């Protein structure tokens, strides 16, 4: 098992945001995570990437418990992520943003962080994402979908084993979404990294994810093959219940 989350739990004030969530991710697997607004998906990712400390529960990568590790040590384990509302460094250029990911990966592997090597890898990644032309500009000057690609390139840049993507398809046109999902599948193919993708766009999500996990009010209510999860009565109820 690559990732194992055991009984993650956290409450903010009186609100239980995530309640005893357990699941696993195999190496090279793509897991989709769905759930209505406020069901605790982002909070889950925040705990799994140690941006917030879990109230209870444990997280293991390859059997190694990293629950108590500082967030900056996770890159070395091979974990990276993107954010629901874009969090690119606004005063760094597109290339510099990606370079941060590259240098983090080099640090993790213990290779010397030479500028030449960093930039070579940055340009490779930019080419892969089709954003080389934007290398020198500040992210804010780019369209939203392109910024998303930049953020994903930054997350992939550290050559992680496990990437968490928080709503990567949100705000993308269907063409952009299709291109991105192809990119993600290609990357998985070539590097064998596992992905955990949170998104509301179930259609696109199902086209990339092998397995789904559904949350409602902080709890896992269904898990398994996409078709089974989406037709699960509890899942239908949680969506319909919040939509009406």
């Amino acid at each position, binding site marked *: 098992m690559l990732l194992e989350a055991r009984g993650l739990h956290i409450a903010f004030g009186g609100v239980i945001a995530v309640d005893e969530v357990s699941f696993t991710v195999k190496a090279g697997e793509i897991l989709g995570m769905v759930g209505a607004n406020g069901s605790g998906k982002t909070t889950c990712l925040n705990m799994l990437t140690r941006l917030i400390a879990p109230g209870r529960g444990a997280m293991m990568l390859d059997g190694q418990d990293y629950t108590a590790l500082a967030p*900056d040590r996770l890159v070395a384990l091979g974990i990276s992520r993107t954010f629901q509302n874009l*969090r690119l460094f606004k005063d760094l250029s597109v290339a510099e943003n990606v370079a941060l990911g590259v240098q983090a990966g080099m640090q993790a592997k213990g290779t010397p962080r030479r500028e030449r090597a960093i930039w070579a890898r940055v340009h490779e990644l930019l080419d892969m994402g089709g954003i080389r032309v934007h290398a020198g500009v500040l992210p804010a000057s780019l369209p939203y979908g392109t910024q998303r690609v930049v953020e994903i390139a930054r997350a992939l840049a*550290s050559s992680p084993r496990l990437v968490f993507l928080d709503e990567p398809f949100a705000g993308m046109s269907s063409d952009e979404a299709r291109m991105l999902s192809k990119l993600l599948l290609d990357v998985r193919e070539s590097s064998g990294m596992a992905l955990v993708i949170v998104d509301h766009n179930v259609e696109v999500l199902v086209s990339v994810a092998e397995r789904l996990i559904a949350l409602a009010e902080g709890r896992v209510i269904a898990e398994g093959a996409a078709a089974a999860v989406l037709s699960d009565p509890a899942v239908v109820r949680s969506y319909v219940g919040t939509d009406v």
Partner: protein
Amino acid sequence: MDGEWSATLLLCGIYSLVAIATQLGIICGAFSLAPIGWMSVGAYAAALAATKWQVGGATGLAIGVLVAVVFGPLVMLPVRRISGLYFALVSLAFVLVIQSVVSHMDYTGRALGIFGVPLLTNLWHVGIALVLVCGVAAFMTGGWRGRALRAAGQDPKVAYSMGVNVANLQLVVGAISAVIGVVAGFLYAHYVGYVDPTQYGFAMVVQVITMVIIGGRGHWMGAIIGAFLITSLPLILRPLAEWRDVVNGALLIVVAVLLPAGIFGVFGLFRRRAGPVDPAEAKAGH
């Protein structure tokens, strides 16, 4: 060289040092005015070494630097909990508490300060110090280290998730900028020949902020541009000398509103952000 000009040049150099120290803090997300307090520590170390301790200037400097290395990170510590304007206020309070302490202790000569610091500082000393400090600043803000530093300053949380140990980085910057401040104060005391508490108070804080903002926030060269411009302004615009504060104030407003990245920012547009371009591509472009 004309005496007045060389004096101004020397002051430009000393101010550049403090401005760079302040700038380093700003780059890593800590708007800290503490370097002015450290300047005062350096100046008093120089004065005490020369008058009370009866040790050589070098020993005085070493003691000041030691204090800075130990306590510099400590003064930076609150930035973990308090950010932005509030941290600036905490660091300002630090500066003013130091000022208040030295102006009430007999040992430091109270409000009169300490006279009789030997006049040793010359342009060479300042020049060498400035080159060294520029080297340190370039090292800290260049390459992967610089990107990590700027990332920490812009969004500490994301920087953490990119493997940057933001807190450690800020403590290191706290130590470095404190040492630079001490060196600046030491040189200044040995230049003017005395220290007194009014030298390192609110007026100096305003002066240094003005330099950093006008020169350009976010790059050590901006600090140097600002320090040279503001220090030599009275000399350049001699007819305006008595309107100096008005000119400074107006510059501050104009730059903050119209050129948020300062004078350096105007050149910063040409900075290479895309990384080195490989030769084959450069040829194809032409």
